[in-house]
């Protein structure tokens, strides 16, 4: 069984708690299929070591994602990625995009942009990215 390296990036200078950062990123890796069904996750101690966090935090993340049905733990063999429903993947995709957009609009508003300005900016960005 081959252990994969899990690409999780921790931002220490963020308002988001460490535990949330790890959980959200791991969830996203699973739902988007970057960690496929059956992937064997590192042991709690190994993962904690790689992330420089405590085993308590990793255990909590594994437990939460197991409760959400994204992970399953087999006694004695470890923790694996479970099967993700196609509908879940679709919902998550749109939800993730919406959240990012919300954050962008929020920062625009905080520097005093009007709704019209935001709309024209949005169109510009859209054009720049999608017509590459």
């Amino acid at each position, binding site marked *: 069984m081959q252990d994969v390296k899990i690409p999780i990036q921790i931002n220490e200078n963020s308002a988001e708690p460490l535990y949330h950062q790890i959980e959200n990123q791991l969830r996203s890796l699973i739902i988007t299929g970057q960690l496929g069904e059956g992937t064997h996750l590192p042991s709690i101690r190994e993962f904690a070591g790689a992330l420089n966090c*405590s085993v*308590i*935090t990793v255990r909590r993340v594994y437990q939460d994602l197991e409760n959400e049905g994204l992970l399953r733990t087999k006694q004695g063999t470890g923790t694996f990625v479970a099967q993700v429903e196609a509908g879940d993947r679709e919902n998550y995709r749109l939800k993730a995009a919406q959240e990012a957009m919300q954050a962008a609009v929020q920062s625009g508003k905080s520097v005093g942009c009007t709704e019209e300005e935001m709309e024209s900016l949005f169109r510009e960005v859209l054009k720049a990215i999608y017509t590459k």
Partner: protein
Amino acid sequence: MEPIAVQLNGVSKMRKRRVIGPIDLTIPEGYVVAILGHNGSGKSTLLNMLQQVVLPDAGQIIWFGKEHEGPLPLELRQQIGFVADNAGLEENRITAQEAAEFRAYWYPRWDMKLFDQLIRDMEVPVDVKLNKMSKGERRKFEIAAAIAARPRLLLLDEPSSGLDPFAWKVMVGQFRTFMAEGDTTILIATHIADEVKRLADYIVLMHRGQSLGMAEKDMVLDQWKEVWYEGDLRPESIPGVVESSLEERGLVRVITTRVSEAQERLELSNNRVLKIRNLELDEVLAFWIAGYAPVQWK
């Protein structure tokens, strides 16, 4: 309930300069617990009492669920590993190899293969008498020998003092591997923030002989944030602010324990957040000592 490695109930000891304790502490099995505190705060006394090198004047210590009247039984001693601040004199005139053979006799779970590998990885000379080694080499031998005895409880008193950065990295790796293999418990007294970050699950803070309590490391480090903002919101009206100052060009710097609420409050009132920074371990400990106890997981 998790199994408990050691428990101290009202343990105290009169030292030359101050009374250590009364200490109440419960260390769960299978974790790395960092013991932090200034010099003379009682860290070493605590570790020494956990293996009866120092006997408490009062209170009760329970090892793996059992209290022991009088000296600790041999079977228990064989399960406790120790890297002391000052290495003992007994093995001074023998080589690392001879000392390993001596220890193999006393520790039933001694793993000579592991010892040889650790000594190789950390580049400790095997044919030099222990008192002829440099401070760092001796320290590396002590660490290798403590791990090779495969203890159930490993007590480390500033294990990295005298180590070069390369050896330090190897040491941290060895402790991690060792932890991954079983339900060992490590208590490590240290001043090195990086060591705490890389190894610890829990933090115990000692101050003037008292234990200020135990908290999860990630919770302790996550709780404190410094926020820089631009705007006219008064710091007093921001949630969780314990310190604030007016900086150049009208910027305000606050330290808060409730950063998401603080950020929300600032954004709602059109104040611009410029930067959020995690406090360093030493800054966090200063607040803890000043009376701001860390939050516990709900």
